[in-house]
């Protein structure tokens, strides 16, 4: 816990805190940040320094989000992530980057503003009620609202998180942005930016507005379920490999939303593990797809094929990451999904069954993806060289982390058990 006065007259302080939950995400950020840098080692071509500056700035924002205890600081960090991310897509992205970056910016900005309004309103309401004007999360905790105000404020926060996660149907920006972003950008977007939303929900939404959250939970769970199934079907229908992977994110992050809003310990733990696994697995998949595109010049599933025989190491990683997508036991995703489903069964039987059906859809799209790109015999037009040693090392570390999550989930859960004590969040007793 590190605290400095920032704008004392308004009760704004520069307060950073670290507990089990933020620690997990800080580790993820460090790992995936490094991966983003290493993955874009060769592919940039132009304005390399500027790219890394922007990347670093996004990273700073992400770290800030995961560490802020002061809500003003949190909102500030939230915005800090946005602008350089916009440039990462807009300057170094693919052919459709301009449209994608604008879309990303508008969606995020709209959500961000609503959250900022909610932060200010929360500050004011709390100040009026108690006479203490502060943005400090610990001070604001336990503020009593009348139900309507609580719901409005909660929705303000939720709007920002829902865009970033994303929550169906606010995912419209995601496929374009993920797809058009350069490798490093996709990795940051998929692995980390979406996690800031899940983190924000667990850290701020649940403890600050318990009543509103409880009232809103059924809607959120069904939105999550809709995302799971919808994203799955969308992934199934894609011809562009990167776009396919983008839609799988919509599906997998749906589990995060469901898990959080089950308001049970299993659900929350599952959501966290699902976020970490998604960060590692899908982050690694974006790295892999990026490298694949660099080598083959295409992401078109109709033109790919036979990559396993051509590039066995690439194929092996492709296989493991595909298995991550289907939630195979032994990898973190399985634990996340299993915990989320076992948490949501308590209260949402029908929703859970539909969500479970998403796992069948996942099998369909993931195996289709793997078959079309890696199975078959190599076509003459395609020449792909295999991964070199540093690339194997990078993906190897990410996969090893994913396996660790799958085999020793208790190590992560241990960190989360201390969660309640450190920042007043007590998962499980919420409902």
């Amino acid at each position, binding site marked *: 816990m590190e605290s400095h006065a920032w704008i004392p007259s308004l009760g704004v302080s520069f307060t950073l805190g670290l507990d089990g939950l933020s620690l997990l995400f800080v580790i993820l950020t460090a790992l995936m940040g490094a991966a983003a840098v290493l993955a874009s080692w060769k592919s940039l071509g132009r304005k390399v320094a500027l790219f890394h500056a922007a990347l670093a700035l996004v990273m700073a924002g992400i770290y800030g989000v995961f560490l802020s205890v002061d809500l003003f600081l949190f909102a500030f960090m939230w915005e800090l992530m946005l602008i350089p991310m916009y440039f990462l897509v807009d300057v170094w992205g693919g052919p459709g980057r301009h449209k994608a970056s604008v879309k990303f910016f*508008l969606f995020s900005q709209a959500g961000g503003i609503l959250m900022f309004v909610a932060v200010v309103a929360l500050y004011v*309401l709390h100040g009026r009620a108690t006479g203490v004007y502060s943005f400090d999360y610990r001070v604001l905790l336990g503020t009593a609202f009348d139900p309507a105000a609580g719901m409005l404020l909660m929705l303000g926060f939720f709007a920002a998180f829902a865009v970033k996660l994303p929550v169906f149907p606010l995912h419209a920006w995601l496929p374009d942005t993920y797809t058009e972003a350069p490798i490093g950008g996709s990795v940051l977007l998929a692995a980390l930016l979406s996690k800031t939303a899940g983190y924000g929900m667990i850290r701020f939404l649940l403890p600050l507005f318990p009543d509103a959250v409880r009232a809103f939970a059924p809607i959120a769970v069904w939105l999550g379920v809709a995302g799971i199934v919808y994203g799955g079907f969308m992934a199934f*229908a894609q011809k562009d490999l990167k776009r396919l992977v983008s839609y799988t994110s919509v599906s997998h992050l749906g589990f995060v939303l469901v898990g959080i809003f089950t308001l049970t310990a299993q659900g929350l733990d599952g959501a966290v593990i699902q976020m970490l696994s998604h960060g590692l697995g899908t982050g690694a998949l974006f790295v892999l797809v990026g490298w694949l595109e660099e080598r083959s010049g295409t992401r078109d599933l109709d033109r790919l094929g036979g990559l396993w025989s051509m590039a066995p190491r690439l194929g092996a990683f492709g296989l493991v990451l595909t298995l991550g997508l289907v939630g195979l036991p032994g990898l973190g995703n399985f634990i996340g999904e299993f915990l989320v489903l076992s948490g949501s069964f308590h209260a949402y039987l029908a929703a859970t069954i539909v969500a*479970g059906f998403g796992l069948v859809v996942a099998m369909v799209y993931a195996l289709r993806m793997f078959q079309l790109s890696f199975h078959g015999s190599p076509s003459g037009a395609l020449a792909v060289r295999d991964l070199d040693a540093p690339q194997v090392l990078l993906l190897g570390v990410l996969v090893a982390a994913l396996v660790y999550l799958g085999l020793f989930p208790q190590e992560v859960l241990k960190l989360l058990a201390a969660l309640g004590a450190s920042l007043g969040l007590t998962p499980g007793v919420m409902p």
Partner: protein
Amino acid sequence: MVESAIGLVLAPLASFILISFVTRRAAILSAVISIAAAGISFALSLSLLVGVLSAPAGAGLAAGAHASIQWLSIPSIGRFRGLEIAMGVLVDPLSATMSVIVSLVAFLVTIYSLGYMKGDPGFSRYFSYLSLFAFSMLGLVIADNYFQTFVFWELVGLCSYLLIGFWYAKPSASDAARKAFVTNRWADFAFMVGVILLFIFFGTFDFGQLSSAIAGARGSAMLALVAALVFVGPLGKSAQFPFHVWLPDAMEGPTPVSALIHAATMVAAGVYLIARGFALFQSVPGVMETMAYLGGFTALFAASIALVQKDIKRILAYSTLSQLGYMFMALGVGSMSAGMFHLTTHAFFKALLFLGAGSVIHATEEQDIFKMGGLGKKMKITAWTFVIGALALSGIFPLAGFWSKDEILFASLSSGHIGLYVLGIAVAFMTAFYMFRLIFTAFGGTAFGGTASGGEPTEHAHVHESGPAMTIPLIVLAVLSVFAGLIGSPWFQSAFGFSFGSFIFFGRPEASHLDMTTASISTVVALSGIFLAWLVYGKKLLKAERIAAALGPLYRLLDHKFYIDEIYAWVFAKIMLGLGIVFDWIDHYIVDGLFDGLGGATRALGRKLRLTQSGRLQGYALVIFAAVAIAVVFISTDLLGGFLK
């Protein structure tokens, strides 16, 4: 005992890791490691079985061993139950017997593969997968709770996927692998839901604790729901109707794999799970009846398709479906020993038949039996062992299949399922017929293929017997196919004081039976099946074409496997793909279009604002921000009033 159990699971895992990361380039070394690991597993599982059986009779669970560690724990808070997941080993007669079967067949198949896969570019990869499979399957066998079972259940599914698609450059293999994995996922979805509900209702995944908890919940609706859901898992893994479609296609994998995974062990995992969780299923009569009739139906349905298949492996695959149906029928009518007994004998003779088929395919590079012929003279060991396997499968006294099949028939008779009894006898007739149709066509006759298929006859002048790596496993399995059934015979019981029932019981062992009526009927029926096959395909007194023509539509129905695959493909194409396309359209034109429209409007606004602002996006972001800030101040003036004072 616990150490041995852990060791027998970990040895193949170590082999998998070693081959994948170290000896990948040293093909022969990889094979040796894999064989050694399978051998260690076999030796350890034998020691377990000996240990379990040497315990005093009636010792029950005390004869075995059970150890577990807590793997994942989420404490309960308030009225919400947490989650406790353990990983453990359960050694009892059932798991010890099953691990002997699995590791023995795995050991023999691994040796056999040394010859069969010789020269394949993926040699090391193949052996690493075999080891991974042995690890997963043995892990499933010794698991002490439903969660752990589910974990390994998925892993064997993965191995099956990898091995069916081993020759992934071939589109048919790749498709078959995907079909197997996806079909199983449908069933596993229900299975997983069932497992989660088990925990929610009973607070434990542990087999032992559950069986006592279930006893107290008999008759409740939720117990019925859970049992029904869990039951769907075995339906998928053991390829029972309507999930059977993946198994025949799975024959795209290398033949030793078909023997190990898709005949002897993995497909029997469903039967094993039902035996393992017998307390659960037994407590819900509806599920038991469904099991019996679905099994009986699958037995008949698959056997009828096998009558007309031309591909040697597909005939065996449909035969496997049919025999698994028998096992389900046995379990469904309440006889766990009969089901497990047939699983045991079937593992030996069906592995033998598949490996024999592999030997034939290896020599002729041909799978259509009507393009073979006269192989008996050129491949003596293969031919003789194959005939032994076929006799065992047909249930000819005193071979293995005779004892176990009669046990099933007797169980259905004595439990009052006369319909199933008759059905079982009909299936026995069909089984004998299709097996000897195969034998007379492929091994009998002249060196030139028959013309029943209408295809060009192929000369097999170069055909010769396979090497010792392949023939020795055949001989060992042939010996087992002859004698393994005796452990379930009354003679064995009177000589040693216990019988097969004691190998697997966790309640009271069932005694072995020899019902002379059933034995006579089934023998006569099987012999007449063989005789009819001889008339048609051996002597060619009856023309197969004429029979086919006489049967007309029925023949076409069988030939197209009742059009089930076509129906599924149609449903899949229309519904799954259709939904995908519809959603894609919605996403593109409605969700995206809506927001694109918003974006367009904002951009138009931005263009206007550009007259006053210099920047691009930052420009209007600033405007938006400022506007909102003003709005906030405006809305909350009275709130702020208090603060500004």
